[in-house]
């Protein structure tokens, strides 16, 4: 009998706030990015290029898990490219 038992709710990584992501602009400095989105929790180990990955992962007790990633690529300390797995409206 599948009894609605309590299942562990797992939340990991950074909270990604859509309107904060919308304020990201190329050319911003690292400090400005950190002020907007905080410190990235997944720092990567053997990273060749200068990039920050903001990962939000939520696995509720029941139902599908949610994963979103916003990566910020820097060139000489300035934001060069922004990747967002969940494009606005997506």
């Amino acid at each position, binding site marked *: 009998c599948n*009894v609605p*038992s*309590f*299942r*562990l709710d797992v*939340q*990991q990584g950074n*909270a990604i706030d859509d309107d904060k992501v919308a304020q990201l602009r190329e050319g911003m400095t690292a400090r400005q990015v950190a002020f907007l989105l*905080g410190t990235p929790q997944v720092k990567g180990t053997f990273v060749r290029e200068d990039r920050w990955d903001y990962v939000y992962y939520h696995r509720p007790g029941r139902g599908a898990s949610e994963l979103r990633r916003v990566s910020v690529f820097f060139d000489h300390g300035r934001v060069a490219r922004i990747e967002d797995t969940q494009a606005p409206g997506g």
Partner: protein
Amino acid sequence: QSYVIEDIEIEGLERITAGTTLTYLPVQVGDTFDDARSPEVIRALFQTGFFSDVEVARRGDVLVVIVQERPAINEIRFSGNRDIPTDALTDALQGVGLQRGRVFNRTILDRIENELRQQYLARGRYNVQIDIEITELPRNRVDVDITIAEGQVARIREVNIVGNEAFDDRSLTRRFESGVPRWWAFLSRRDHYSRQKLSGDLEKLRSHYLDEGFLNFDVDSTQVTLTPDRKDIYITINVDEGAQYRIGAVDLAGDLILPAEELRELIEVQPGEVFSRREVVESAERISRRLTTEGFAFANVNPVPEVDEETREVALTFFVDPGPRVYVRRITITGNSRTLESVYRRELRQMEGAWFNGDQIDRSRVRVQRLPFVESVNIETRRVAGSEDEVDLEIAVTERMSGALSLGAGYSQNQGLLLTGSLSQDNFLGSGNRVTISLSRSDVSQMVNFSVLNPHYTIHGASRGFSVFYQEIDAEEANISRFAANRFGGDVTYGIPLSEFGTLTIQPGFENVEIVTVADTPGEILDFIDREGNQYNLLSTEVSYTYDTRDSVIFAASGRRHRVGAELVLPGSDLQYYRLSYSGQEIFKLSDSYSLSLSARLGYGDGYGSTDELPFFEHYFAGGIRTVRGFKDNSLGPRDSNDDPYGGSFRTTGSVELFFPLPFAADNDAVRMSSFVDAGQVFASVDDFEADELRVSAGLAMTWMSPVGPLSLSYGVPLREKDGDETQSVQFLLGAAF
């Protein structure tokens, strides 16, 4: 006339060496010396403090110094000191230079008296009298005898508040630390004056007024006056209440993170109400706590009042400054010298790599605290160096030996001599699993029981376990009707968490019961056996739901526990019957060490199908330390034809209990005392229930978490009893199951 010193001789030395004295002399061999320099020599030697008299003479070209050593202190004796122990006084005097073997000179006498007087004044003994006698001893030593008349401690006779109209003196000084003790507090030191206590009381006075709207309440001045005989103290506090203010508009400002309505509900303060600082502070705290669950660990909310003097209203704005959203990087667990770290980590609701959640951390503390092998847990948040929004958590656990290999003999009233051997470990080999192996033999029963429970079988916290048991009992000895029931069987237990506090438990099991009758087995039992035979194979399943928010399993200080259960012996078994049970407990935390518990238990069973009543060996009984204290074990309720307790199919018990720490040893948290009122009775069946048949008792009880296991001791006096009841005031039990 001056001369060149050829040699220096020192006369009169006893204990002090010539070498030491020479080092202090301002002159040496070869210097030119004349009378003009003698005062210099004399002063130099006097300053050492060793000598009471110094003379300078000359013999040819030899400088002769004649000294008289000061006496050394041989013995220091105190008499009459009771409030301050002797060694405390000796330490105090060492600071002033009075010590065995040290040099004694009269000048330090008044310094000694002064130092002692300071010690006593600090304790409020204002009329202490001190006199010191010096007795000379041979070999230039002295004894110091200090007799002290400590006198009485100055007692506070009255705390008088002047200028208070809104509240009378009594209601203001009730919670003061200084004042006249209540008539029953004979050991209280409340009337001993101390400045810290008084300043603490002034703080209490101010918060009392600020919590009742008197915004600009102020203490004009305080006077502490002493009677000339220095025995009594009168304290006067002159206050200016100022006006009482009410709350005007209330609103929120700053970065709210959450919708304003949700935060507004957390604010206790309503417009129009009397301004209360406590409510304002609590509302601010509640908002910031709510924000911590969203990751804003360093959120702070400060209420800014704007006072409108005409309308006497205060407009309140709660400024919310959430600070950054904070992430938990590492959670380190220390102190688990006997347990696997994962046993603790799996209880935590807060995870690494997630944002900080205040509620989850509080919940984690309580869950670890509830583990039976944990004595105390302390969670500390530390900022990660160089990062604004990351913290580490440090969880320091102190463990408690929760049961161990215990072989022992015991004695309990209803079981006679009890030989037990049990390895019961709540934390078997540190794995967090509970394993119990116990064998016991007594005049009454032989029992073997092996049970295993893994409280955290799945990562979600479901538990699983099983137990097998064999029990042979001689009912006669156990003061139950004349028959013996041998049982063996086993069961499997599944615990499924339905929510943070609720758990569903399913326990299918099999049991074989064999009834052995004796010569004078009563008729009721014989009839039953004629109908049903004396051997039964029973397949049963118990389903129960438990809701438990208590903050500890052993000595809960607050929270509630409600359990409703139904045990059904399935069709196809030799007997068909069911038992329904409910047990509820509400615990209210009165203060740090006092809690009030209201608890009730109901049990009802009946046969179905081919069995028309609850079998007698499954009857409920009442009386004894587990149900209604003050009455002999199992003695309540219906009796069989031989006038022995027969039990019944419906039992109700209830209890009101006030828990308090062991007096004089309040910090010993292995013992808890309580005063209780129990009530309860067992009835043949539900419709026999009569309220005035309920037996009531009251008394004192104590539970001690001894290394061998929990020991309960109770002294109960029946309040409502009927003739024929067997009462028993002192009862105890070793290894009470929890």
